[in-house]
């Protein structure tokens, strides 16, 4: 089956099926494979190719493309997203259709040069409301960056109310029947794809929805999985739900939330956590809460982290390492956007206390903001040490509210203190 598939009289699917793929980018599970969707749009004055496929599947793509158009008819190539699963066949396509003009989003320019490894490529950068005419068909570009790369855009075929959405509204699901009203149940794949690919970019999803929702919509044609022709707006609505707040937050706009996670072997880290919370609560506007990692798992906590302004993690050091629930929690942060959130670590230890520094390094690696060096306490906290915890919590609260006292530090001390403590 290497026939193109008709979406309308002028639009055809010329993508590729990849039913045997089992994991995508290593981290995503794709139990029934995926598709790379590319499309051809025929206007009275030429053909546009919208996106291509992964290099290994290029043959399917070219076979289907040749069945709908000859290379010299191709006037326009649109790239909605430059990731290799959609641009693998691009260099060869450009060789076969050298006259075709390339349209990419404004934010994709540097990436295109890096991708093709050449500086002097001829292309047209476009943004929202730029259009390109194919005679009696018009493509309009919509700037929807960070879904899920900085370069992403959507393309709208005005006369047919058809949206070529790139990875947005897509999913890894391979079914040669191709249309959402024909394929098997792909709802789990749709949700899974949102959760793993789009969720970290929640704010950008909301921005994109604001642009896309007002459009009349006959078909949404994403780059992976089923083509959404039956009630396409439902899928948009689902994105709206998934990207919204779960419950109206009880926290006021001028307040900030600090979530303190901890886990304790003999109660010392618990005591520390309680004092830290008490300290943070002294700062006006801070709402601090405590969660024992033993009483929940990372999948539950990650929702909390997504909405929190600051996150502190307390773990004892056991066998020279932080404990597994702490690492599981930190690993789950990759599913959401934690960049720029305030973070910190603390914990007690028996005879070596590496956990705190290890957690701090990992949190810093996630591009969180760590203005303080975490508290570490040997064995049972003394009253002075508990006071240190209280102060640490208070300072965390002050950093969160932006009311911390001006301070002067020396880079050398900063580095030295970290060295000495490790």
């Amino acid at each position, binding site marked *: 089956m290497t026939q193109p598939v008709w979406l309308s009289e002028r639009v055809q699917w010329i993508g590729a099926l990849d039913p045997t793929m089992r994991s995508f980018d290593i981290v995503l599970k794709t139990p029934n494979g995926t598709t790379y969707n590319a499309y051809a749009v025929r206007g009275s004055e030429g053909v546009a190719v919208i996106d291509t496929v992964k290099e290994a599947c290029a043959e399917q793509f070219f076979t289907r493309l040749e069945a709908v158009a000859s290379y010299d008819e191709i006037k326009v190539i649109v790239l909605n997203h430059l990731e290799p699963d959609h641009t693998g066949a691009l260099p060869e396509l450009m060789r076969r259709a050298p006259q075709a003009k390339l349209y990419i989003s404004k934010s994709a320019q540097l990436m295109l040069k890096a991708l093709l490894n050449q500086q002097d490529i001829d292309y047209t950068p476009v943004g929202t409301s730029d259009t390109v005419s194919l005679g009696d068909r018009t493509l309009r570009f919509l700037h929807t960056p960070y879904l899920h790369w*900085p370069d992403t855009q959507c393309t709208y075929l005005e006369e047919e109310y058809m949206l070529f959405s790139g990875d947005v509204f897509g999913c890894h699901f391979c079914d040669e029947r191709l249309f959402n009203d024909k394929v098997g149940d792909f709802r789990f794949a749709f949700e899974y794809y949102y959760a793993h690919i789009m969720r970290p970019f929640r704010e950008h999803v909301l921005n994109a929805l604001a642009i896309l929702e007002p459009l009349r919509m006959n078909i949404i044609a994403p780059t992976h999985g089923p083509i959404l022709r039956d009630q396409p707006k439902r899928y948009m609505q689902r994105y709206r739900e998934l990207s919204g707040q779960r419950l109206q937050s009880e926290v006021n706009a001028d307040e900030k939330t600090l979530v303190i996670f901890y886990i304790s072997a003999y109660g010392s880290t618990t005591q520390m956590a309680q004092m830290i919370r008490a300290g943070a609560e002294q700062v006006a506007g801070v709402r601090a809460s405590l969660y024992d990692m033993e009483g929940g798992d990372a999948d539950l906590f990650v929702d909390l982290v997504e909405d929190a302004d600051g996150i502190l993690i307390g773990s004892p050091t056991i066998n020279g390492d932080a404990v597994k629930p702490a690492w599981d929690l930190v690993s789950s942060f990759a599913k959401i956007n934690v960049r720029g959130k305030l973070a910190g670590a603390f914990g007690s230890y028996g005879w070596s206390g590496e956990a705190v520094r290890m957690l701090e390094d990992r949190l810093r690696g996630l591009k969180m*903001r760590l203005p303080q060096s975490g508290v570490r306490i040997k064995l049972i906290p003394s009253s002075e040490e508990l006071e240190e915890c209280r102060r640490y919590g208070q300072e965390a609260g002050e950093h969160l509210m932006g009311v911390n006292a001006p301070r002067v*530090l020396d*880079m*050398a001390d*900063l*580095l030295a203190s970290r060295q000495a403590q490790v």
Partner: protein
Amino acid sequence: MSKYNITFADIGTTITVPRGTRIVEVAEKVGASIPFGCKENDCGDCMIEVLEGAYNLSIPSALETELLKQKFGKSNNRLACQAMVLGDVTVKPA
């Protein structure tokens, strides 16, 4: 080696650093709220606004200037992963 002060205005923190330190390295160490991505003049995420002492930073390279232009930077913007401290300076996230 000579040392200079860099102040992160948004968090009220001043740090004394050796000449030639890249701003992003200090920012990361003290938890300043300057975002960054690649640290290689590629993503442009680390754009900062220089409030004082712009002339105390290393001169922007052609690549930095190009990326700043693409990111719609103004004349008081720099990339924290590229600019090196050569004198006292005050910055904040752009």
